[in-house]
């Protein structure tokens, strides 16, 4: 039982970070905070991959004269390098959109944005009625 909890503590961290990130994405009204949550969520996945790749006592996988040296699996790291780039692109695009939204709506709060869209809709509707 203790092993179940503390023996795999790295997975617990991944899991907790993941849930925090997802919770932020779902619950926060601020568009900026959502992106922060998303970044956290993605980072937790990076950790998950790296946890797989790590071998206790292993070093960087660089060829040396010592044939018996233990080294970590390099593939997850490479994959995560790609995933980090993707994550950066996502975050950058999200931030850029947030900036543009702020410019267009004067707010980055979801509720205020939908309220102002509603106002716009009603204005248009009344114009049609006139």
């Amino acid at each position, binding site marked *: 039982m203790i092993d179940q909890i503390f023996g795999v503590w790295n997975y617990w961290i991944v899991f907790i970070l993941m849930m925090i990130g997802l919770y932020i994405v779902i619950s926060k009204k601020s568009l900026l905070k959502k992106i922060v949550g998303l970044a956290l969520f993605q980072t937790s996945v990076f950790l998950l*991959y790296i946890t797989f790749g790590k071998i206790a006592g292993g070093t960087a996988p660089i060829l040396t004269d010592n044939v018996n040296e233990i080294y970590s699996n390099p593939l997850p790291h490479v994959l995560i390098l790609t995933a980090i780039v993707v994550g950066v*692109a996502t975050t950058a*695009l999200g931030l850029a959109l947030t900036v*543009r939204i702020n410019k267009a709506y004067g707010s980055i709060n979801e509720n205020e944005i939908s309220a102002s869209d509603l106002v716009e809709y009603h204005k248009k509707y009344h114009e049609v009625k006139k």
Partner: protein
Amino acid sequence: MTFIIKNLPILIVITPLMFSLIVAVLSNNRLAWILSTFASFLTMIFSILLCFELSNNSNISYYLGNWPPPLGIEYVIDKVSIIPIIIVSVIGFIATLYAHNFFILEIDRNLVSKTYSLWLLTIAGLMGLITTADAFNLFVFLEISSLSAVALVALGSKMDRKALIAGYNYLILGAVGATFYVIGVGLLYGVTGTLNMSDLAQKIPALGLNKSVIVAFTFMMLGIMVKAAVFPLHIWLPNAYAYAPSPVSVLLAATATKVSIYILVRISYTIFGPSYEIYTFESLRYVLLYLAILAMFAGTIMAIFEKDVKKLLAHSSVAQIGYIVLGISLATSPGIASGFIHLINHALIKAGLFMSVVAMGYYTLKRIDVNSITGLGRQVPITFFAFVICALSLAGLPLTVGFISKLYLIKAAFMSEGIWLPFLILVSSALSLIYIWKLIEGLWYNKTNSKSEKIKELPEIYIPLLIISFLNIYFGIDADLIIDNSFIASDALISGIK
């Protein structure tokens, strides 16, 4: 020229990719358009060549950088993946041909060439998604295509600021979906040590009822279901399609979700196919089935009450995705084949519908909603004609592609589930007639006491439109090509299960 034949699987991906980089730095918008059209034309030619290549052998496999799998990345083209390849390349070409007038109207002039760059990048991403046989590479292409698609959607903000919100929601949901997928891939990699799809398929059955694999399967399916807009994970779709710049709506509606559905099929049948009894539980099949039925009705009913025409079409897309997923969830050869048939046909139908609706918006310079279309049909007769053909095709009028897909879908549903399922399908498609008819009627009726002038229709807009409507009819009559290939594809998938 043999190196072209030899390298076709990668050429269809890198042609749009490389051209997107060239187009990005151009300052002349027209030149950017010509180059993009050329690139998408080349892609289409390569895809068609690939089709011929494939008629000789059952699949073409390509090792990137000469690294053999499972170490290297493998690209595989087989009888299944050729279907979405043809859809994306043909629709991509027609949409690119069609795009120019709209982009210079709807987007800031100095952004047009970059828009084309994103556009080609989307096509490249979609092509990569289809061809790759590496689970992680698939994630990269998933993000390439969806990030560029998000940027394209957000570019609609010059016309309507809601495009920004639509793009933002698309981004967040898409990123969560892709991350879900990558979690699943990570878990699979953790237990099998490989990322190659066929290698995974070989190793998973040996693991039995491993919890990691079950969780991985769930995560991957969920992630792709978000991308494929399977009900109820579709909420990003209507706004994204509705507020994107017009050509982007055409491209995305016709291709993006189709490719995601193809991946859904790939995951559940190719990767988990050999261990089908263990992992693709009967229950999951039923989850998909019921979600598809809900999607059919929810999408249709939302479309009936929707005023904005582009959004209406997007809601109808949700319903149509329901039909496709329904066919696939039947898990029989005719079922999957009918899913593929509708995959192709719906791409043709929705491309035509979006093209004609945005053309009307272009001519009248305003957003098309149900009230503003009254009498528009006589002002733009050619566009109206194309719209009617595609709309009737959506409704499933005989001699159009919509009828063929409905015929096979109902047959497959009847053969595996009995009468209740075809009945539900038909009720929902009869309901879909309501919104189709609302549009046709609105376009056809005259405005009360106002003489409307005829609008001069532009050949560069109506020629691609007429091509699409012609295809809608042609493949409704000569449906052999689509039907046969869909059955070959579904048989190939089903044989993986056994």
